[in-house]
């Protein structure tokens, strides 16, 4: 089997982009789209965002609004109907979104000769109105000069506490977790502090994001109460270091998975990514925080000699 190329990744995403254009009135669930592109649902959204330059949600929303703009000019449907078609429950929300994208309100747009500005589309893709989408631009927001290392990690035993809720509140879980371990003498100079996000905080509703706060431990630690033990699998990982506040981690994930990965010749395994926190967020300025992001790579199949 050949290593995956940028074109392979583009072809797979194109299937999704065509499907979205042709099914704008459907719910377009992420799992379904991931399956179309043969990506693991864990990683699909970040790959999409990194390659297309907008999230699936933003992309779909923009296409629906572009379609609505066309119908506003050419048809006689009421604005409320168009709002519902575009997936909005109220006239006001529709108007707000429409104006943010086109710089004019729907009624203003309909009644005047004014042309709306063209919606920003990093991928160059707009509502195709039945024509088949054949290509798209992959953006390069610094993805090409991103420093990525392929590293081999040994399996790592960790104690963890599960957090279910907004990613921005994981600090509270850490605050409960660390004292329990610390008073047992389980934190030292070589302890690794790791976060495993089982959901993408940009996709999953905040109240349902599952995140494991993890601390490396040896065999002497056994699970207790709320604290479990798991093993982070060994093997090859693509690793990059994110510099800056945790709230901007999503951008680095999107860059790694959507820009670097498609050009790397590698594919991801279906395990979740994880992040290793290199400094204490309580004694470090957010702009100086260092976080290593690890994306698990699928084993490379041997290229058969011919």
């Amino acid at each position, binding site marked *: 089997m050949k290593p995956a190329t940028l074109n392979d990744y583009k072809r797979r995403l194109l299937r999704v982009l065509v499907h979205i254009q042709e099914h704008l009135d459907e719910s377009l669930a992420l799992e379904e789209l991931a399956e179309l592109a043969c990506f693991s649902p864990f990683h699909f959204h970040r790959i999409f965002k990194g390659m297309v330059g907008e999230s699936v949600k933003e992309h779909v929303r923009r296409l629906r609004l572009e379609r609505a703009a066309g119908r506003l000019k050419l048809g006689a449907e009421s604005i409320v109907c168009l709002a519902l078609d575009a997936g909005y429950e109220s006239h006001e929300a529709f108007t707000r979104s429409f104006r943010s994208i086109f710089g004019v309100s729907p009624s203003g747009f309909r009644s005047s000769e004014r042309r709306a500005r063209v919606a920003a589309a990093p991928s160059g893709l707009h509502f195709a109105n039945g024509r088949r989408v054949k290509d798209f631009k992959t953006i390069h927001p610094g993805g090409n000069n991103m420093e990525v290392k392929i590293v081999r990690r040994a399996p790592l035993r960790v104690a963890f506490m599960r957090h279910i809720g907004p990613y921005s509140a994981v600090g509270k879980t850490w605050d409960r977790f*660390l*004292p329990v371990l*610390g*008073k047992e*003498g389980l*934190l*030292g100079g070589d302890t690794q502090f790791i976060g495993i996000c089982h959901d993408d905080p940009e996709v999953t509703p905040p109240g349902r994001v599952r995140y494991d706060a993890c601390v490396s431990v040896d065999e*002497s630690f056994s699970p207790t109460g709320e604290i479990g033990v798991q093993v982070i699998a060994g093997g090859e990982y693509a690793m990059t270091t994110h510099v800056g506040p945790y709230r901007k981690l999503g951008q680095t994930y999107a860059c790694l998975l959507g820009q670097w990965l498609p050009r790397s010749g590698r594919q991801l395994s279906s395990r979740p990514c994880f992040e290793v926190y*290199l400094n204490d967020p309580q*004694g470090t300025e957010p702009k100086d925080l260092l976080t290593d992001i690890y994306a698990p790579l699928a084993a490379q199949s041997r290229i058969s000699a011919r």
Partner: protein
Amino acid sequence: MTKTPQEKIDLYKQHKNEYAAPGKPVLVEIKPAVYLAISGQGAPGGDQFTASIGALYGAAFTIKMTRKFAGRQDYGICKLEGQWWSDSGPDLSKAPKDQWRWNLLIRTPRFVTGEDLRKAVDVLLKRGKGEEVKQVRLETLAEGTCVQMLHVGPYDQECVTIARMKEFAENNQLEFHGRHHEVYLSDPRRVPPERLKTILRCPVRRNAG
């Protein structure tokens, strides 16, 4: 203003002027300060040095988290600091690295007691975290007037910065008196040597001559 017990103590904020890090030498007044400390001899990065850093952090984390678990006053763990000297004189560049002596430090709030430390050491020993932790002690340093300056670059280029500090001291009728002290602001595992930031500090006294 009284602090509520939930409010976390930040020693850097409390003693901001003591951590001044300008690009040219200045005089600072360092009040007596409490540290967790461990000392030894040998090259930085050597086995004893690495084990000692592990023991020092182990003690610092365990004390802090034990207190926090019990609902006692919380605080941030400070950055690593170190005093350096050798028996052949204060100028380290003249001594072979295996004869460098060091006292590694983590600044700690005054309310941390010897009892807190003793309990932490017991817990760490029970966990099999290495015998070095028995060497960790609480130490108060009273450095007084010091020359201080930010050094940017590899640790082995510090002599250039130290020479500027020395010149500054002499111009102010002062002389170095006491151990060279540094505060590691950057993580050497991640920051390239040319960007490492380190506060250099040296106690001074009135020039006798």
